Every structure is written in C-alpha cells, then in structure tokens.
C-alpha cells in the first residue's frame, strides 16, 4: 500500500515538470536564449553587498531584517504590477518577435530593400498558425531595421545640417520629432484606409509600422551619397531607392491585401478588387513622396 501511494504521488510531478520545460524550451529556441536567470542571481548578490557597504543598520537586528524583507517583497509586487499593466498597453511579448533577428537576416533584408528585383518568393512562411520569427524567414517584417534606420537618419540629418552650418543640438530633437510625427500620421492614414476599404487582412499595426519604417534605409543611402558626391549623386541614388522601395512595397503588400486570385496576377474584375489595388498602389506611392519630403532640405 505504501509503495503504491508514493508511486502515484511520484508520477504526478514529472508530468508537470515536462509541460513547463517544453513551453520554455520552444519559446527560448524560437526567439532568444534565456540569460536572465544567471544575471538576476548575480544582481541580488551585488545588491545585498552594496547595502551593507552603504552603512545600513546591522542585519543582525531582527526588526530591520523584517523591514528589509517586507520592503523587498513590496518592491517585487510593485514590479509585477507595473509589468502586468505595461503589458496591457504595449504588448511586450509581441514586440519581442519583431526583434528576433540576426546578422544574416539584416544583411539579406537590406539587400532586398535596395535591390528587390531578383527575389522571387515573397510569401511569409508560417509555423502552425504563427508566423515564423524574422530570423528564419527573409520575408517576415521586423522592427530592428526601422528602429536603427530611424536613429541613423536623425544622426545623418544632423551631419548634413552641420555641413550647411545650420546645426544646433535642438535641431536634432526637432528632426526626430518631425520624422516621428510623419511616421505616426502615415501609419494612422494607412489604418484608416484599410478600415474604409474593409480589407480582411492579418496585417497588425506593428506590421504597418515596420513597413513604413523601411523607407529610412533608402533615405539614408540617398543623403549619404549626396554628402559624399554632391547633388547629382543624391538625386540618382534617391531615385534608385524610391523605385526599389516602390517595388518592394507592392510585392509585399500584394500578398497581404489583395485577394488570392488577384495576387497571383490574374485580372479580377469587381469594384472591391479595384479599390484594393488602388490602396496598394497608393501606399507604395506614398513612400517615395515621404522619402523626398524628409530629405530634400538636407542637401542644398
């Protein structure tokens, strides 16, 4: 009797352990390695040593012991609450997906943004209903390149304004907020037009943010060429990048916005398909316009 009781109790635990580890395992291998455990362990050790060095009342006193334990539990509770509420407004776990990139992906994607004419398969591959992380699929949108491109654009804009002797540190902030406002307005306009045309698509807001952020790469190439080689080079490289971004956006959005038949290239009649086609073209055409608008004042 005793042996069977312990056996059944023993059997429950391994199952639970397996379930937890499988969830952690796939998450970690899919996106990032989990280095937090090691880091947080060393951090708490440092904290305690730091507190003692700062001359706190001696830890042997039971009251201060109790107070410290209470304080640390309060702090961890507060941190949990902040995390939970922050997750409600900014989906942090979804954001992590967009930053799961590696060097090979970034290189290939930058090449695609500047020269999209040879790429044939533009579909995003899925893995059991969830899109594959950008690390494994060149066609998946990411937020790393737009974020880095935005920051680089601001720095290059500061450099360009400096060559015109118009630089001051406030100007960097003005450029940054200006570009950010244009980006937000563009994403809102695209969202509004998607709502009006009632397109059933799985494009999320963050996807649209990523697609709108890809034009910064072309802008940086144009401005740097203009700084190095003069105005004709600026116009030439901007023209090339505008055409490249136009083709890139059309080929990417075609699969997401248009119906299946139209996306394969067959002519499909009907007012709705026409509207969708116009929508795709106008989103793609807005990119070169923004690219020119945001850079022409940098190269005089």
């Amino acid at each position, binding site marked *: 009797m005793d042996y069977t009781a312990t056996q059944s109790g023993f059997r429950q635990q391994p199952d639970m352990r397996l379930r937890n580890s499988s969830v952690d395992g796939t998450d970690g291998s899919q996106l990032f390695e989990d280095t937090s455990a090691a880091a947080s362990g060393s951090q708490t050790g440092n904290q305690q040593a730091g507190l003692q060095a700062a001359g706190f009342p001696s830890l042997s006193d039971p009251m201060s012991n109790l107070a410290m334990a209470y304080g640390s539990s309060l702090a961890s509770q507060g941190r949990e609450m902040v995390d939970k509420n922050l997750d409600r407004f900014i989906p942090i776990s979804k954001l992590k997906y967009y930053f799961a990139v590696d060097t090979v992906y970034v290189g290939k994607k930058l090449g695609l943004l500047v020269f999209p004419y040879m790429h044939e398969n533009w579909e995003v591959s899925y893995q059991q209903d969830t899109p594959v992380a950008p690390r494994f699929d060149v066609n998946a949108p990411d937020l790393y390149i737009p974020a880095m491109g935005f920051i680089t654009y601001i720095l290059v804009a500061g450099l360009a304004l400096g060559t015109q002797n118009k630089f001051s540190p406030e100007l960097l902030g003005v450029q940054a*907020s200006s570009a950010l*406002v244009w980006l937000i307005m563009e994403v809102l306009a695209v969202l509004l037009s998607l709502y*009006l045309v009632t397109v059933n698509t799985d494009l999320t807001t963050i996807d649209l943010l990523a697609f709108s952020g890809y034009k910064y790469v072309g802008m940086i190439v144009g401005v740097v060429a203009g700084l190095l080689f003069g105005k004709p080079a600026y116009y030439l490289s901007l023209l090339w990048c505008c055409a490249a971004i136009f083709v890139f956006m059309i080929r990417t959005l075609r699969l997401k916005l248009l119906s299946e038949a139209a996306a394969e290239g067959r002519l499909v009649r009907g007012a709705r398909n026409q509207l969708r086609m116009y929508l795709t073209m106008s989103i793609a055409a807005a990119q070169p316009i923004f690219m020119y608008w945001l850079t022409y004042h940098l190269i005089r």
Partner: protein
Amino acid sequence: MAFTLYSLIQTAILCINAVAVLHEERFLSKFGWGVDQGVGGFGDDPGVKAQILTLIRSVRTVMRVPLIIVNAACIVLLLLFG
C-alpha cells in the same frame, strides 16, 4: 515643417472635435448621410460610404464624454499657460 508631438496631439483633438459636431438631423441628413440611410445590406460588402457613416457615428457615440473632459482640460491649460 517642424512638427512636434504636441502639434500631433492638437491636430488629433481638433479633428475629433470636428467629427463630433456633425449633427445627424440638421446636417448629415441633407447629404443623404443620415442614420437611416447608411446601413443598407447585411452582405459582406458594406462599401466605403457605409464605413464612413459607421465611423462617424461611432466616434460621436464613444468620444462624447472623453471629449468634454479633454476640451475642458485644454481650455484650463491654455488659459493658465497661454
């Protein structure tokens, strides 16, 4: 051309105010954009006009109370700080 985030907030408040003051009976019905003229069929193709009408009506319904609060706050802040 120097946009700031503050001007974006201003634009948003002004636009939502503009949509909120569109009166159904006195104004929109004259254009054929009233409450009863919008939702035609229940098929899967509402059309652009029906979507716009739904959007206007939903903005007016949802944003009425928050707009009162935001406008009052804006008035107070502009009076105090110019």
